[in-house]
């Protein structure tokens, strides 16, 4: 019972801070709401008992990604009084509400095969590593190559060239 109450509190916090990200008028406030929202998603992984991904979420999203975003916000200052939303925002709002209604109704009404209504099963770190390094070895290596390429590409793109 206590778990359920906590779950609803965290779910409300995630949705509230996510709304803060898209509705806040200041980019820095948006970034701070984003940190809170991503930390809440990490808490969701703990509710699902997937400790490894919760750790990864806190480290990579809570740490690295948000720091990168804050740094980019610092480097690309917006002019004072510049509007953050385009003129298409009201239409986008209606499309997003319709999308949410459709997705939620589909998710709630579908009888998911294999769903016995049990507790979520604990996914241990050992099980994840075994899968990742045995069955998914090739995608793992390709993903690391992708990261390396993206890193080099980012350096090349953002580098200050002579005479600029």
């Amino acid at each position, binding site marked *: 019972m206590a778990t359920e109450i906590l779950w609803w509190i965290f779910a409300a916090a995630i949705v509230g801070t996510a709304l803060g990200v*898209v509705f806040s008028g200041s*980019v820095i406030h948006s970034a701070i709401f984003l940190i809170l929202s991503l930390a809440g998603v990490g808490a969701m*992984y703990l509710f699902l008992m997937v400790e*490894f991904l919760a750790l990864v979420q806190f480290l990579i*999203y809570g740490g690295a990604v948000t720091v990168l975003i804050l740094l980019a916000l610092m480097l690309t200052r917006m002019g004072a009084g510049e509007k953050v939303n385009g003129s298409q925002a009201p239409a986008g709002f209606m499309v*997003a509400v319709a999308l949410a209604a459709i997705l*939620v109704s589909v998710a709630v009404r579908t009888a998911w095969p294999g769903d016995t209504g049990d507790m*979520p099963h604990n*996914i241990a770190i050992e099980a994840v590593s075994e899968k990742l390094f045995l069955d998914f070895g090739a995608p793992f290596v390709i993903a690391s190559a992708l990261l390396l390429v993206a*890193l080099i590409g980012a350096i090349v793109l953002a580098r200050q060239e002579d005479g600029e």
Partner: protein
Amino acid sequence: MVPLENYLALSAILFSIGFYGVLARRNAVLILMSIELMLNAVSINFIAFAAYLDPDRIIGAIFAVFVITVAAAEVGLALAIVIRLFRNRATSNVDEAAIMKW
């Protein structure tokens, strides 16, 4: 205990919020932040399915690892592009980066 549907509904709502952000915002960094929200919604979905429906093979959890990896690569590259755009045109507004628009 929390049923699977709750996670799916939460993920759907989070995805739609991010979708609205992508549609409505003009600043490239804000659009990127909304994309992060959408990717996180997808990860919640993958992991919820893995934990409830597929606890033996846990492919959803492995997919979430790759989603996080690709998201990290994407953020690094996208922010490099935004900084380059800002340096060349003194704006991070995507409406003004329309030089390749026909």
